[in-house]
């Protein structure tokens, strides 16, 4: 079984409260916010490593990211991935999900590996579109399903459970296939000291634009059908009135507030 896992380094979502927009440049100030591997991508990697333990084969991670993210990619290798591919070129910058998924598809093709399964975190913490897994499947003309909480492989088929609003829906996908793995769907393993040592000998292959057989009209910002305008920080602040007293007194005040808000109790 050859499994590819798409991963993305993102600013740590636990620190988004600290993000600001520079009033002059209108750009995002993300100073002091560390970069981590997108949480859902770790769930996807964990799912891949478990499938490898059961069925053998190898796990490759692939990422489209700036070169300085090599550290984070190393972390995936230390978790147990066998090899890594980093697609990195200014020409790919500013890509929306349409061109990102196109570029990832081209990167996967370039590896020359016949992947049976391509996993991705269902959504990234920063953009959170959850578009990439489906769009990757469309570019590669493979079956694709997102928001998957469980995945099993047998007889050339991936049996998956997809989260829907009122439960789970089960499908069988013929391999090769693309699966978006839901965040929190498993407990990603910790990186062990042994893992770090082993990762030293694993390769990270870097692809630039000239390495990939890409149509220039489909990459980067200029190849993206969606174009960003301005960034805004919404003002959500309200002027909270402090309620004080014994719980019983507060309860009486709250009841009055709730009634005033139009609730008949």
């Amino acid at each position, binding site marked *: 079984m050859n499994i590819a896992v798409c991963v993305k380094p993102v600013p740590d979502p636990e620190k988004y409260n600290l993000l600001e927009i520079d009033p002059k440049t209108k750009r995002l100030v993300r100073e002091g916010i560390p970069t981590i591997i997108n949480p859902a991508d770790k769930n996807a990697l964990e799912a891949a490593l478990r499938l490898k333990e059961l069925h053998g084969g190898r796990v490759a991670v692939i990422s489209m990211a700036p070169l300085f993210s090599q550290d984070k990619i190393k972390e995936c290798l230390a978790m147990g991935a066998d090899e890594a591919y980093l697609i990195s070129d200014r020409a790919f910058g500013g890509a929306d*999900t349409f061109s990102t998924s196109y570029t990832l598809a081209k990167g996967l093709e370039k590896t020359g590996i016949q992947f049976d399964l391509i996993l991705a975190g269902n959504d990234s913490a920063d953009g*959170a579109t959850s*578009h990439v897994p489906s769009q990757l499947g469309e570019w590669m003309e493979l079956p694709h399903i997102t928001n998957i909480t469980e995945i099993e492989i047998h007889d050339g088929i991936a049996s998956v459970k997809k989260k829907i609003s009122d439960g789970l829906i089960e499908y069988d*996908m013929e391999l090769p296939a693309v699966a978006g793995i839901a965040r929190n769907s498993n407990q990603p393993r910790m990186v062990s000291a042994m893992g770090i040592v082993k990762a030293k000998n694993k390769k990270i292959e870097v692809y630039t634009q000239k390495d990939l057989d890409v149509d220039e009209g489909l990459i980067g910002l200029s190849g*993206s059908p969606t*174009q960003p305008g301005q960034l805004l*920080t919404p003002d959500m602040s309200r002027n909270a*009135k*402090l309620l004080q007293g014994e719980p019983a007194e507060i309860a009486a005040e709250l009841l009055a507030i709730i009634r005033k808000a139009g609730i008949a109790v």
Partner: protein
Amino acid sequence: MENKKILIYAELKGGSLETSAYELLAKARTLFPAADAAIALAIAGCGIDEALKEAAVSGADLVYGVDSPRLELYHVDYHAEALKKIAETFHPDIFLIPASCTGEELAPTLGLKLRTGVAAHCVDLQVDQNGEFLQMVPAFGGKVIGEIYTPKTKPQIASIKPGMFSVIRQQPRSCKTVLLDDSFLEELKTKIKLRGIEKDEPSGVPVEQADVVVCGGFGIETADNWKQVERLASLLGGAVGSTRPAVDQGWVSGEQQMIGTSGKTVRPKVYIGAGVSGATHHICGMKDSNVIISINTDKDAEIFAVSDYKIVGDGAAVIKALCELLERRQ
């Protein structure tokens, strides 16, 4: 300038239209107030006669339907193909899709099938001073809102979380209903086979439809305390909401009531948050509530900054006191 054409994917629930269809219809009507837009609803399901009738008097100008046994349960290939067919028949400028668990997958899939851009989880839709359609999308858990244009390709696809816009009932218009021949679905080859569905136990009032939401966070501390959250929601005729950690603790089963970027968007008359810290990811889903009341032991909790009333104290204790007061009054 020709009138704009807007297509809305109207999802179904038990044979009738989901509330999201009405939310998107109301919003779509406001976009081009001067030039009357042609708004069509797209319905894809099995046995959709009633839904088509309902749609015809919803205030839409057109209704497109695909009725096929293949569409009985959600299947990405069949549903995407049906919607693609409708889009290729109607040629919309704008295509609005609810970002439900299923719409969230259909929107990007259609984006590629129709070779166009998709703006995800829009918190607002506008038309700018140049008459261009402008989509406002949240990033970084809602801390930042970005403007997105789709300048070169049509339709401009936008997905919108259910609950983002209010329902404003529209006057019925003279409406044409077009039922498309569904034979293309019979011919479609798919590598995905539907095996079955496991439904969760319905848990009272859906959180996005309740007038009162009592939301418990990690600060509720114990499963036993959580019962107070449920008790208050029931006494107020509302729904229980939760944060991610409360789900992880198993105090609520599943994510149906989770509020935030990866959960539901709510705008109740009253939101009561107890033991909720106010992470960006959570605030994004409740900030439009009419009245926000928060209880937290930490006087500097972030949630207080977006609240109308704050109580510095134990969440479970305050909730319990309110329950007792309500019970005494009954």
